[in-house]
């Protein structure tokens, strides 16, 4: 062989050797040299089971103050749990045995600072393991830690879930050597915590507590992990709104919770992320400041009337926007344990003796009493059955359909025009007005006012009242007479407020709503457009009736009058079915300023004391309006009438 050939062979050898070495180096780099990412891959099971979730959409008041947000809590798992359970069994027998489940749980408690009943937890996990093996032949592989065990009323043992706070999880992760401590130093991981894994879950957070709790509602976690499988992904929808906006808009508020098998291929990771359902945020029409004033006024009103329950709605009759909605007792959204007892107090109504009334304004119809006279008079004026100057001679009693109707305190008021009938809230007069109108037109007008029907407000659940009509089995001629002054007919506070808002808004009722804007996942903002609900009466009738109601308040010297502002309104005092006690529901509806109504307030106080005539709306509910309205005018920047007149004329 000559030298040149030998050189060529050597050259070929090197030429082949170099790529071989490069390949080996690359293999070594990947297989032997460790990086943080690869270490994570080594330690994690493959494919990685990843829990991904998006938070529930936020709820804010009209000025962007957060009413419902999210915070995280952490669930704790022990992997390779079977080993620890086995060691737990041996622990009592062998001296110096390996770590048992008790040791591991105690280490978690030490590291996190969480209170865990180790003995009860271990016992329960052992029982779960045994039952799993007996029923399915499969041992418990991963243990979900619990804080302890409680016994329910039926003697059944129930686990108390263990949820670590952010601080507790931080302490645990520092002890595991996953995160540095506050000084930036990593600690050596404890062997006891080697198989401990935490998983973050979003929880609803209501920073304002009980403020506007009736509107906001409550979102709770549903059931025990019933998931829906889609293309190998277990998808959970666990957040369920119980009432209010949380319930009505649950579909767009809810985030997604998914357990996915997470590949290391980047494309697959991102496609998994795309699965997470984006939530929308809601901006309410509620004004936090007005809401707080309303709740304070309600509390004072209930205290003054020694009443157990009550509610107030503040709405803008021009748009149907609900600025505040309060009921009492109200639930503290940060304390779900107190919900049931609160609902029981709200629900102690004749038409719902079982309780579970979540909203007095939207879901608890009542017989409104004299505030209903506004609707009767509106119908009669609009149809031409009466005019403001129509006279009525009141003897204090009138017989209609074989039933004798009396006035409050059985008084007779003599000769009165229609304004006088409203001023003195004369039952006999309004019953007579209804007969002048006739049952057909009367109930047709009530239909137009949507009495007995839902308003369509964007809150759940909304329950309508009952309006019996001619032809219904229990309807008689006397029903028309009693309906005329708001007895024998039921409606919610909201339904009454919306119906009467037609008088304040030129005869037009606007659809009530509590959501002002929906912020879509892509950042677009959908602003809710005010929608008319109907026009039951003409603008002229509305103006006439409003003037009558304003004058009647002024002539009466009502306790609802507000200094500096001309208002219109009507008191109401309703007997409570089955009318066997002297208990009443006192109410007042008022709006203003009369020349440009911007707020309508409906106040309802249930079962005030009869002491010092406090069972009457004029005594108990009207002063609440006088206290609340000026505060709302100030917060909305509505000047007193004299100032507005001066400013508008350029004076």
């Amino acid at each position, binding site marked *: *062989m000559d030298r040149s050939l030998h050189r060529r*062979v050597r050259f070929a050898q090197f030429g*082949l050797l170099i*790529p*071989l070495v490069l*390949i080996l180096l*690359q*293999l070594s780099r990947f297989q032997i040299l460790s*990086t*943080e*990412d*690869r270490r*994570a891959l080594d330690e994690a099971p493959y494919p990685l089971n*990843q829990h991904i979730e*998006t*938070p529930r*959409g*936020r709820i*804010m008041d*009209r000025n*962007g103050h*957060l009413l419902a*947000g999210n*915070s995280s809590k952490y669930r704790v798992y022990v992997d390779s749990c079977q080993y620890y359970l086995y060691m737990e069994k041996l622990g009592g027998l062998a001296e110096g045995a390996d770590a048992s489940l008790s040791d591991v749980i105690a280490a978690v408690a030490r590291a996190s600072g969480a209170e865990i009943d180790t003995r009860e937890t271990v016992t329960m996990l052992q029982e779960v393991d045994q039952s799993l093996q007996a029923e399915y032949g499969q041992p418990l592989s991963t243990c979900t830690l619990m804080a302890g065990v409680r016994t329910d009323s039926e003697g059944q043992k129930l686990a108390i879930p263990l949820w670590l706070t*952010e601080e507790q999880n931080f302490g645990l992760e520092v002890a595991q050597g996953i995160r540095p401590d506050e000084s930036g130093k990593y600690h050596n991981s404890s062997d006891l915590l080697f198989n401990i894994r935490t998983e*973050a879950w*979003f929880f609803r*957070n209501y*920073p*304002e507590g009980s*403020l506007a709790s009736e509107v906001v509602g409550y979102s709770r976690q549903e059931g025990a992990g019933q998931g829906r499988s889609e293309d190998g992904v277990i998808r959970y929808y666990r957040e369920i709104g119980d009432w209010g906006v949380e319930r009505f808009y649950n579909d767009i508020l809810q985030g997604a919770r998914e357990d996915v098998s*997470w590949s*290391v*291929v*980047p*494309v*697959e*990771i*991102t496609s998994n*992320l795309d699965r*997470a359902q*984006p*939530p*929308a*945020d809601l*901006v309410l029409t509620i004004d*936090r400041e007005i809401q*707080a004033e309303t709740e304070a006024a309600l509390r004072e009103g209930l205290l003054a009337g020694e009443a157990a329950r009550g509610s107030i709605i503040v709405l803008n009759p021009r748009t149907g926007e609900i600025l505040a909605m309060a009921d009492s007792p109200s639930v503290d959204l940060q304390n779900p344990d107190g919900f049931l007892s609160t609902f029981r107090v709200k629900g102690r109504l004749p038409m719902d003796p079982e309780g579970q009334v979540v909203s007095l304004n939207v879901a608890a119809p009542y017989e409104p009493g004299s505030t209903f006279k506004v609707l009767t008079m509106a119908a009669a004026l609009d149809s031409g059955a009466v005019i403001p100057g129509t006279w009525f001679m009141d003897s204090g009693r009138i017989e209609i359909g074989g039933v004798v109707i009396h006035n409050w305190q059985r008084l007779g008021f003599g000769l009165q025009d229609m304004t006088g009938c409203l001023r003195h809230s004369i039952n006999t007069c309004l019953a007579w007005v209804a007969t002048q109108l006739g049952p057909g037109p009367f109930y047709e007008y009530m239909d137009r006012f949507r009495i007995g029907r839902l308003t369509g407000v964007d809150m759940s659940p909304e329950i309508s009242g009952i309006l019996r009509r001619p032809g219904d089995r229990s309807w008689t001629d006397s029903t028309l007479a009693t309906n005329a002054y708001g007895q024998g007919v039921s409606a919610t506070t909201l339904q009454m407020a919306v119906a009467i808002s037609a008088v304040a808004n030129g005869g037009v009722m606007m659809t009530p709503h509590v959501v002002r*804007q929906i912020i*879509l*996942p*892509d*950042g677009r903002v959908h602003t809710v457009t005010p929608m008319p609900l109907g026009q039951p009466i003409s603008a002229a009738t509305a103006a006439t009736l409003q003037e009558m109601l304003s004058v009647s308040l002024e002539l009466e010297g009502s306790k609802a009058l507000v*200094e500096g502002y001309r208002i219109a309104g009507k008191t109401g005092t309703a007997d409570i079915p089955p009318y066997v006690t002297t208990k009443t529901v006192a109410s007042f509806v008022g709006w203003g300023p009369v020349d440009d109504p911007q707020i309508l307030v409906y106040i309802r106080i249930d079962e005030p004391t009869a002491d010092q005539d406090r069972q009457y709306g004029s005594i108990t509910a009207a002063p609440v309006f006088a206290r609340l309205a*000026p505060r709302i005018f*100030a917060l909305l*920047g509505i*000047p007193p009438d004299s100032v507005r007149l001066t*400013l508008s004329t*350029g004076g």
Partner: protein
Amino acid sequence: MPNDPIRKPSPKKIRAYKLAPWREQTRLLAIGLASVSGLMAMLALFIFTGAQAAEAGLRVQSLIRERDRQLRQLEAQEAELSQRQSEEWMRARAAALGFTPAGADDIDYLVVAEIPAAVTIPPSPTSLLYIADDIALSPAYRETLLEWVLRAILRKGGA
């Protein structure tokens, strides 16, 4: 001569033109080694890109986890901040500082011409923080070898 028969070459000539056995073996060996080398180079390419993809995937996972952790903190901090600025707290604080609610008499009203209507700027949506429609992954993870080569050529040409 055109019609002369073709004569068989002499054994010497045949031997002279015949490829030596060792030369043939070397050639076969070289072809074989080149094939193996090519195959190994391809394998190396697969391993290299596979390892890169896996590392990138782990990195993406790690970054997503980190982002998740930080966004959870943001959500929690937003809730905590709101709690600390709750209406009840603000009212109590204002009262402690000596403020009282303003009544109608405390307010002076002025006419201001051409004042723009108050505009509420809605907060950024929660979901924007969580959903990235197009997470910036290198196209190398999605394209074929041909697309990759073409892109590389075009990039070089355009540079």
